[in-house]
């Protein structure tokens, strides 16, 4: 899995992931989120447009990132999810906790 970080207006850090998010890549995602928080970023978005597949290990890494971000006084939101990720979020009742936004720019548009 590859990562690209960019910032968008509103002091939002966008972590764009590329590849399958499974037990092989989950720890790299945790590390990437930890690095952003250590660098002082608080408003994080995981852009999942190039993630064709996510399993419960990947979901667990996002939840770990969400908890770390909240402990640091920030948040982690997700954007641009595909059909398979939406299915996993629905099956696990996690859409309320990790609400998918259509685009990274919309993740913090209401605060």
């Amino acid at each position, binding site marked *: 899995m590859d990562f690209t970080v960019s910032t968008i207006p509103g002091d939002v850090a966008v972590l764009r992931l590329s590849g399958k998010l499974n037990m*092989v890549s989950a720890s790299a995602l945790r590390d990437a989120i930890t690095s952003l928080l250590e660098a002082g970023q608080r408003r994080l978005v995981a852009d999942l447009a190039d993630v064709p597949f996510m399993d419960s290990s990947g979901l667990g890494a996002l939840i770990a990132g969400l908890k770390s971000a909240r402990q640091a006084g920030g948040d982690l939101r997700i954007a641009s999810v595909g059909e398979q990720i939406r299915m996993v979020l629905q099956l696990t009742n996690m859409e309320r906790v990790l609400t998918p936004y259509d685009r990274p720019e919309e993740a913090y548009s209401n605060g």
Partner: protein
Amino acid sequence: MVDPEPQVLALSSPPDDVNSVHALLEEVWAAHGDVPDLDRMAFETALIELASNVIGHADGGEGISCSLAVTVSEDRIEANLVDTGQPGNIVLSAVALPDDLAESGRGLPIIQALVDELSYSREDGLNRWHIARKRER
């Protein structure tokens, strides 16, 4: 004609991982272009959860070997997975989802939601797993 022969994978972890299972499924879907997207997506999700469970939890320290066979027939897709891991302490009856902020414990509920058959048995020192999903009509 649908090919009833299983497509098989022998996996040793480490160094193999679930990406080998994704690669096997790519070959399966390539050979069975008639399987609808929803079935592919659901079956792949269930099988990766199962394989992750086997690789992640069944390792007593020496690594594990698995053999996986995926069969696509006209009305169903099934996988049979045999592994050398520790005996599974498995409860297959309706498993509840964990708390919202739990970081694990969702694999089995996901599998149960996506397949029509899920079974586990321990025979001759091996774990035997079976999942099957009926194809969309």
